[in-house]
């Protein structure tokens, strides 16, 4: 049954399962060693069968690729390595045919230094054209702003010998920040939005959104003027295409991120950065407290808004939002190899982070799929792909998707030396051991497990839309919480320990109801007034529907 597009729920993103992928890494259809839109088009059946409902594409625009495409040289095109705009349109249409939405990157904060706007600005006399970017005679302005990429950048200012002035950049020096105090820049970016909206794109991830505006005497992050700009973008989208979604990337404490929802008039979604490292910490500590604290510190958000949840993504596992002690603990727990550390984080994929322990992978995904928010699955994590710590920057988690055990992991027919990145070849995570084809043929594979979990998650809107309430059983190795939405009551319990754990739960508020284990639809004994006793296997978890007893 194909449903015509455009008749959907405006809150579709609350029920979505988002799959994040770089086009270059997914599938190479033309054999040049780089993934492309034709390749992505050819793999849509796979994504449909996985059950994901929304694809988040990392930057695919023309770019010198010094920051993996986040250094954009043309907002209105497709990088020739990935195909053409026609290829993109064909892919987008086919994704929509499969009821999959597509969100793309909108890198508002900066461009590449190769962008025509910058090349023009640095040669322009003082005035509107030069003012597309932020210039200064000195590098003393905005001293309150921290340097984000501490491993590579020493200052947020870089001298430009052509302009004879310093230009401002919060990230790499080849990424000059746009100047949103210039109305022309705002108009330009709204035009960019319109271009992609008119093609049918369903949403935009707003990259590095806290840094859009600079003011002396501040940290240059989360400024009121930045929020005013986002509200303007939101108004523009609502007027032009109301079902489109804005997803904020604001790696900030929860209270600061909360501001990016506004009163429901800024972004529809924002990443929940603080909870992700605490999930890993709780797992290693075998103690639920870090998760419960992070969730309890999460402020309420407007009804129309939603958190975006993830375990891993294309960046490092960022530890910016944890305390110094917590960061030290995480480094010791998850990155004894210094090669794994980058900036304030750990550049590893999910499977290697948890020692390739299948039970841990399943447990973490069960949290991802049952916590309040929209889950994001990073490409390859559905088959337990590994990483390559010896590739620079974050490239070790952006290696070619492993489709088969054939040459180049079935990713490309090119000469292996021509691939944009070597495939993973180690004996544990290498493509001959970990690939889609093998896991398709193995009904107990992680791929089948993920597919079923996604299917289960989609059956219950409570996961995307319901409230959450944590229980406090005496055994802190067990995390227990109740999700509610309309008539649905779901009770989730998870063992964070590597050993079997007993737990007594106060479920007296649900006395008389019958827990039905959701995955196997198995009825458990009804809840009474006494504590409800459960035993959980190592890293085990249960989801229960609480049903009324049969008449």
């Amino acid at each position, binding site marked *: *049954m*194909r*449903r015509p597009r455009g008749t959907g729920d405006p809150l579709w993103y609350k029920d979505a399962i988002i799959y994040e992928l770089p086009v270059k890494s997914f599938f190479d259809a033309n054999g040049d060693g780089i993934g492309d839109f034709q390749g992505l088009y050819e793999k849509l059946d796979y994504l449909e069968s996985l059950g994901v409902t929304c694809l988040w594409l990392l930057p695919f625009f023309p770019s010198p690729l010094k920051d993996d495409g986040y250094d954009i040289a043309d907002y209105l095109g497709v990088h020739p390595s990935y195909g053409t705009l026609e290829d993109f349109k064909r892919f987008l249409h086919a994704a929509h045919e499969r009821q999959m939405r597509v969100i793309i990157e909108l890198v508002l904060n900066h461009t590449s230094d190769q962008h025509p706007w910058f090349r023009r600005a640095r040669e322009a006399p003082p005035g509107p054209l030069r003012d597309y970017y932020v210039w200064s005679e000195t590098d003393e302005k905005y001293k309150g702003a921290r340097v984000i990429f501490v491993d590579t950048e020493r200052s947020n200012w870089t001298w430009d010998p052509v302009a004879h002035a310093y230009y401002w950049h919060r990230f790499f020096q080849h990424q000059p920040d746009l100047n949103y105090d210039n109305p022309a820049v705002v108009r330009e970016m709204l035009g960019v939005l319109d271009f992609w909206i008119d093609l049918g794109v369903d949403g935009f991830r707003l990259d590095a959104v806290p840094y859009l505006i600079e003011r002396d005497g501040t940290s240059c992050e989360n400024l009121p003027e930045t929020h005013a700009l986002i509200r303007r973008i939101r108004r523009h989208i609502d007027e032009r295409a109301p079902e489109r979604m804005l997803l904020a990337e604001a790696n900030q404490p929860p209270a600061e991120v909360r501001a990016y929802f506004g009163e429901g008039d800024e972004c529809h979604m924002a990443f929940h950065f603080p909870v992700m490292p605490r999930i890993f910490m709780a797992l290693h500590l075998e103690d639920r407290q870090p998760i419960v604290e992070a969730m309890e510190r999460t402020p309420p958000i407007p009804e129309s808004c939603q958190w975006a949840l993830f375990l891993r993504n294309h960046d490092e596992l960022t530890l910016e939002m944890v305390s110094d002690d917590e960061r030290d603990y995480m480094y010791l727990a998850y990155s004894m190899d210094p090669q794994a550390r980058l900036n304030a984080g750990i550049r590893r994929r999910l499977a290697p982070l948890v020692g390739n322990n299948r039970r841990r992978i399943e447990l973490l995904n069960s949290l991802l799929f049952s916590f309040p928010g929209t889950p994001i699955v990073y490409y390859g994590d559905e088959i337990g792909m590994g990483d390559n710590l010896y590739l620079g920057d974050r490239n070790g988690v952006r290696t070619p998707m492993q489709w088969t055990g054939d040459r180049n992991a079935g990713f490309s027919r090119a000469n292996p030396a021509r691939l944009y990145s070597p495939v993973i070849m180690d004996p544990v995570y290498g493509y001959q051991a970990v690939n889609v084809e093998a896991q398709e043929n193995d009904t107990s594979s992680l791929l089948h497990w993920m597919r079923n979990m996604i299917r289960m998650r989609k*059956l219950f809107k409570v996961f995307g839309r319901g409230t959450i309430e944590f229980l406090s059983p005496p055994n802190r190795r067990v995390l227990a919480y109740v999700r509610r939405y309309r008539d649905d009551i779901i009770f989730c319990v998870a063992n964070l320990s590597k050993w079997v754990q007993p737990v007594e739960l106060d479920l007296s508020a649900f006395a008389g109801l019958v827990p039905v284990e959701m995955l*196997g639809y198995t009825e458990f004994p009804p809840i009474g007034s006494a504590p409800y006793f459960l035993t959980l296997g190592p890293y085990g978890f249960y989801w229960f529907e609480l049903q009324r007893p*049969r008449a």
Partner: protein
Amino acid sequence: MASTGSNSSVREPEVAAARTDIALVLTSYNDARTIGPAVRAMRDGLSRHVGSGSARFILVDAGSTDGTEDAARAAAAPSAPIDVARVGPPGLADIPYHGYPRRAAALRTALETAARLQAKACVFVDPGLLVPDAAWTERLLSPVLSGGFDYVSPYYVRRANEGALTRGIVYPMFRALYGVRLRQPAGHEFACSRQLVAYYLEQDFWEFDQADAGVDLWLATAAACGPFRACETALGVRPPPSRDAPTDLGTTLAQVVGALYADLEHRVDVWQRVRGSVAVPLVGAVPTAEVEPVSASLEPLIESFRLGYRELREIWTWVLPPRTIVELRKLADGGAEAFRFDDRLWATIVYDFALGYTMRVMPRDHLLRSLAPIYSGWAASFLLQVGGATTVAVEDRVEQICRAFEAEKRYLISRWRWPERLR
């Protein structure tokens, strides 16, 4: 007149100016032979049984070339004028099993017209399938007009050897899934309230792939899943069809069961929460049909099953678990005299095929057609058990089957939620 999904030609000013209490909807395709009697029967039924209240006929024709429209106009009366709409001519692929093309577009057009006429009640009849009895108009209408019901489903008395597909699959599965005991949920004769008309027009199934074959069932499902009161109305013994009935069991199964399975996917958030089932009121007296022994030999049905087991067993192993295959082998190897399908086995087979359908383990049409020999076996088993039984006894037997479908619903849910490929 603006009309989504059809090429309606009802004259706008004519309808815009009109209002009616009752809309009598006929869908037609080369039904010149039967459309006149159908219109007259409904017209007579209206004047004889319904009494006051304005009424209009809405004829939606799918491009007849035999004078159907003229015959309908000639049979109409000034007291119940007729509006004619046309849906575009069918393509070669548009002919469903019952021979009525573009039925979804026709029903949608009729509902849109009825909504514009602000009809309090709508009655639907397909004269190509049946020539209605004059009393039907009242039996279908009065539950809506005076009983407060929103959906009136037909209830025909059927002999043991009639309606096996409905008795064996459609009714038991519909009931188990949606919790409403509508015994003939895909009937082309039904009535609905103004509220339900509006609800139908909001549904998104009109342009789904199988809409022409499945829309009647989906209308019943929508009524069952929504906040509406449903009942059955006794329409007596079902007359023989006037349009050619299908002869190809595989095609019939693919279309009817395919529509049922497709709806399963569409309304998964509803049926997985429904537990048990409730009876709906039956309006009117149910006559007793004469008991007729099953005259035809059942051996061809059993042989079809055995042949299917030999030839299609490999295909079945894609959707049926080993224990089911073993049970089927025992049936295939056994003698005709002891040929009995266990109800729970049958229910799990229907559910396993549903799962195979949604998992797309093979082309869906192939999968559904491969069900035909098993269905033949089940039908033989059913007829062996009910041959010569009274209609009441047959209904009791159907009730047992339904209970098996309800009991095995857990099996369907657990497999649906955590499907495991068998191969």
